[in-house]
């Protein structure tokens, strides 16, 4: 399969291809060729370090959008067991851009909710490119009500450019669907952990991310507006997206400084898609640890709600006249 290559990583991909060619030669295991392979592998490691070590915000956005990056259902299926998907908002429709259901993790039952992108043209059309309709948010709300009734913790996965911008979405109340989730999640007395695994696109991402702990994968981003949208409004030039990405402070590291992100999960060098098994393993472990820590810190509902309120209220910068 042809690999998708981002501009800034071209040298890495070219070298990897060369190495593959060399390895496929019949005499690869012998003499000079073996020596060349070892030499190239060395070079490759150094090059990867160099290119992937200090990524700019815009480069991380590109990794977060990488077409081969694992999707939310991949994470759910590899991290949880017995995932049982539940469908529909009981009002209008089942939105394929939001998935959710019940699952086990280390013996505990969780309500799991996430946004789902496709992996190719066909599945992306089915999933509406991971951009939910109001029905999707209402399905999420329905599942959160199940969590409330049965006192189940919630884990949400976020990977969306944002809520779908369309006529039907507006007619059916995209804004109020998001607002209702924000209100419900902010006052729901069960532990909530949100994981941003890729794109955190504005209100459409926030609608399932109000949580006690926000985990961000190292190359995920979370922004009030897409860098392109911001560039077009504030720079009057969409090609300034790279400057906007920098200015908006959207990386996991920036958001940890602002106390918006709580935990950053390291990805394999070059991004989650370069070693998916390792990514699932690391994230699974982090989720288990995070849930344990949350239960210890907030042993009862009262403390949970108090802490969540404090957390949300503390976000923002004010000065006085």
């Amino acid at each position: 399969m042809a690999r998708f290559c981002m501009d800034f990583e071209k040298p890495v991909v070219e070298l990897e291809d060369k190495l593959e060619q060399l390895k496929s030669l019949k005499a690869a295991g012998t003499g000079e060729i073996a020596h060349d392979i070892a030499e190239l592998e060395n070079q490759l490691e150094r090059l990867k370090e160099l290119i992937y070590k200090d990524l700019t915000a815009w480069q991380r956005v590109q990794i977060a959008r990488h077409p081969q990056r694992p999707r939310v259902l991949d994470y759910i299926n590899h991290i949880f067991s017995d995932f049982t998907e539940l469908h529909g908002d009981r009002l209008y429709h089942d939105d394929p851009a939001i998935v959710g259901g019940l699952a086990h993790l280390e013996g505990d039952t969780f309500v799991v909710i996430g946004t789902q992108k496709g992996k190719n043209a066909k599945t992306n059309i089915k999933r509406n490119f991971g951009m939910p309709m109001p029905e999707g948010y209402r399905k999420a709300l329905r599942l959160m009500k199940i969590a409330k009734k049965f006192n189940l913790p919630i884990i949400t996965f976020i990977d969306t450019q944002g809520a779908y911008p369309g006529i039907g979405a507006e007619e059916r109340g995209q804004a109020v669907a998001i607002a209702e989730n924000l209100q419900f999640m902010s006052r729901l007395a069960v532990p909530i952990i949100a994981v941003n695994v890729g794109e955190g696109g504005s209100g459409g991402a926030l609608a399932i991310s109000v949580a006690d702990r926000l985990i961000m994968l190292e190359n995920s981003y979370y922004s009030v507006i897409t860098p392109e949208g911001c560039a077009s409004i504030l720079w009057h030039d969409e090609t300034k997206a790279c400057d906007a990405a920098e200015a908006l402070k959207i990386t996991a590291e920036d958001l940890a400084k602002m106390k918006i992100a709580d935990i950053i999960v390291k990805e394999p060098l070059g991004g989650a898609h370069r070693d998916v098994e390792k990514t699932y393993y690391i994230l699974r472990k982090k989720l288990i640890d995070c849930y344990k820590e949350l239960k210890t810190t907030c042993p009862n509902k009262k403390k949970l709600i108090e802490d969540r309120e404090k957390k949300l209220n503390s976000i923002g910068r004010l000065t006085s006249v």
Partner: protein
Amino acid sequence: MSEPALSKKVEKSKVVVPEGLWTKCVSCRQIIYEKELIRNYQVCPKCGHHHYLPAISRIELLLDDASFKEINSDLKSGDPLNFKASKSYKMSLKEAGFATALNEAIITGEGKIDGKKVCLSVMDFKFIGGSMGSVVGEKVARAADFAINKKLPFIVVCASGGARMQEGMLSLMQMAKTSMAVGKIHENKLPFISIMAHPTTGGVLASFPSLADIIIAEPKALIGFTGARVIERTIKERLPDGFQTAEFLLKHGMVDLIASRAEQKEIVSQLLGFMGY
């Protein structure tokens, strides 16, 4: 410019009357007497179009004379991201302050409507598009706590383009903060009425004002989540006439009623009466 043209212009302006006394309605294009427009709370006396109304005037419109006491007026935005685009955020804040004589895009406080005590928050569109950053979010949250402590009905008037980009994610998180704040209003069984003026869009629409018990919209106000341009570019077709107007939202069940400025105080007062206030 040549001599005759100049004299002609002077001649013309003699007929038109001194500047500043007259203004043109953006909707019907008719010439209106400026003072009449102000007396009419910026509603065109010819066609009823609702022009921009400063937050201060909205307070006058809704509350009993001299009953308003502002709270948290000293809060001001910093520049947490040190944000610079084609214009710096610091400069935008400064200009907005000059243009509106306000510290931020919202005024909060308490006052009376027909003698009934209420907590009122009013946004001003001229302050960076009425956008919600840290301070707007904080003032809404504090106003809600204030209403809860004093057991007052919570009333908001919105005129906002959405979340303030220049404060990045800190702005987005204010949607969660304000939604939580009004969640507590509901838990305390206090009335919550929101008035959506032109425009109420984006991240502001998708948070506190949409969670009210009763939503009142101003005639023809633009109310929607995503900007029309973005939708058109995504779906690659023209949007229907009247899309995202107050009337469109009423038809689709997203607002309770549409009320002109002249009717708003009476309607809010009556609704509060129904709710036992």
